[in-house]
């Protein structure tokens, strides 16, 4: 299959394991792009791909799309189910529609872009890399994030950034209720420009202004005088 630029893969009637093995083999053979048809919101399509390849999903996808991948780039022409880009090490996933619960969980690098809205727990345990939500983000987004950037152009539901350790949240809209241990901080020189430039690259309309949120580190060490705050967290 060498010299093949684009491989077309029809998911209809194919077991998930066969689809993922076909993508893995294409990556091994140096195929540049795999176009995936008839995804029909199926789960686990394009999981465990550890060599660079570009995936084009034509349609909605189910859970854990581009999960456990390294160096993979993907465009999803539809909406994504839970955990899109789970544990991505490097690469890029662009979701044209909405993403369900836990978009970009535990990613350690790379970038996940959701042009529509994100469900609850966007960027949960984010460890590095960027997660961009073009619309609104659901309940407890950025929960326990440890590093990286979570960029929300729209509004955020309750518990934004709850128990975050480090990293940055950039919020364009309103927040229903801030999570525990989060504080608004002053952006450093160039930080906001970098965020805006990134949004421009995906043709996402930026909000009028961004607020930068970070951990206030109050939950880093247990302090029995702050027991009420801890009780709230737990």
């Amino acid at each position, binding site marked *: 299959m060498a010299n093949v630029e684009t491989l077309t893969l029809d998911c209809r009637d194919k077991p998930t394991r066969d689809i993922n093995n076909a993508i893995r083999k294409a990556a091994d053979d140096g195929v540049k792009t795999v176009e995936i048809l008839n995804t*029909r*919101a*199926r*789960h686990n399509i394009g999981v465990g791909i550890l060599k660079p390849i570009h995936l084009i999903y034509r*349609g*909605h996808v*189910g859970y854990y799309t581009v999960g456990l991948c390294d160096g993979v780039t993907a465009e999803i022409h*539809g*909406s994504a*189910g*839970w955990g899109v880009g789970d544990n991505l090490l490097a690469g890029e996933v662009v979701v044209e*529609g*909405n993403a*369900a*619960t836990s978009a970009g969980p535990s990613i350690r690098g790379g970038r996940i872009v959701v042009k529509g809205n994100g*469900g*609850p*727990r966007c960027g949960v345990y984010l460890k590095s890399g960027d997660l961009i939500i073009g619309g609104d983000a*659901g*309940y*407890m987004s950025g929960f326990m994030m440890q590093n990286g950037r979570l960029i929300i152009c729209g509004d955020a*539901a*309750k518990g934004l950034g709850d128990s975050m350790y480090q990293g940055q949240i950039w919020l364009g809209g309103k927040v229903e209720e801030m999570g525990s241990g989060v504080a608004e901080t002053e952006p450093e020189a160039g930080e906001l420009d970098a965020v805006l430039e990134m949004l421009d690259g995906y043709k996402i309309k930026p909000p009028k202004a961004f607020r930068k949120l970070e951990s206030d580190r109050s939950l880093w060490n247990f302090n029995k005088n702050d027991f009420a705050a801890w009780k709230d967290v737990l």
Partner: protein
Amino acid sequence: MCGVGGIFFKSAEHGAKTGEIAYRILDGIYRRGPDSTGVALWHDNADGLLYVGVNCEAPGGGGRILEALDQLGTVKQATDGDGYIRAAIAYGGSEEDLVDAIDALDPAITVSSVGRHLEVLKHMGGVANLDAKFDLKSYDGRLAMGLTRYATESRIDFTNGQPLSARAVPGLAVMHNGHITNYHHLRSSYALKGYNFSTQNDSEVIPIMLIDEMSKGATFEDALNITVDKLDGCFTYIAVTDDCFAVVKDAYAAKPTVVAENDEFVALSSDPQSLREGVLSDIEVWEPGAGEVHVWQM
């Protein structure tokens, strides 16, 4: 785990086989709950019959149940589904008297639901068994909502299968995916108030809480919102009444559900794939958020 899902048509003249769509949606979430499958169907019921569903864990008990129902009223249609009995009877008395009479037949026999518009059907395993016994696919009414059960708290049998109702209360069926962690506390407080429980399933406390709140004057929607505050644990549940249905999500959004709505129908499922296979279209779906209550009038 469990899966919930189904379809509602906005018009009585929809030209689709509701049962076939519900079959595909429930088949798509079979892997979320392989233990048993149940549905709540809405009937126009022009003849004014009472729909009765009876759990019969006693082998061969179906004959006794139908005989007893025929003494209480007149059985117009009935199916002995081998473990679950479905009947439509002409009956003018109180639902509570009927449920008391049937429940008294045998400790292994309990009425699952009574309804003037809602009928509950259940069977073990996947939706294929339910269809084989009760011909789900032939149903062409306006609403079919169901659940595939992955049992956690109570036995895998007909009695503890879902949908669940409050005992002897017509016009309410609940399908719950999740786990109510303050169930024992709630159950004992409702038992002290005089509510009878028919199962050991933690989900049974949901219809009873709804009935209790409405008996205190809450509207259906208010009662649904109260459950979000009072129930502890994780849940997504569908509640169906004679004239509306709702989907309710816990404050943590821990259990999935997606919704698709167009001019013709509202479809729900725990899983987007199952929903889209159900309605045979790559329709856009959205996910209700944490602590949200969505109600649709029929």
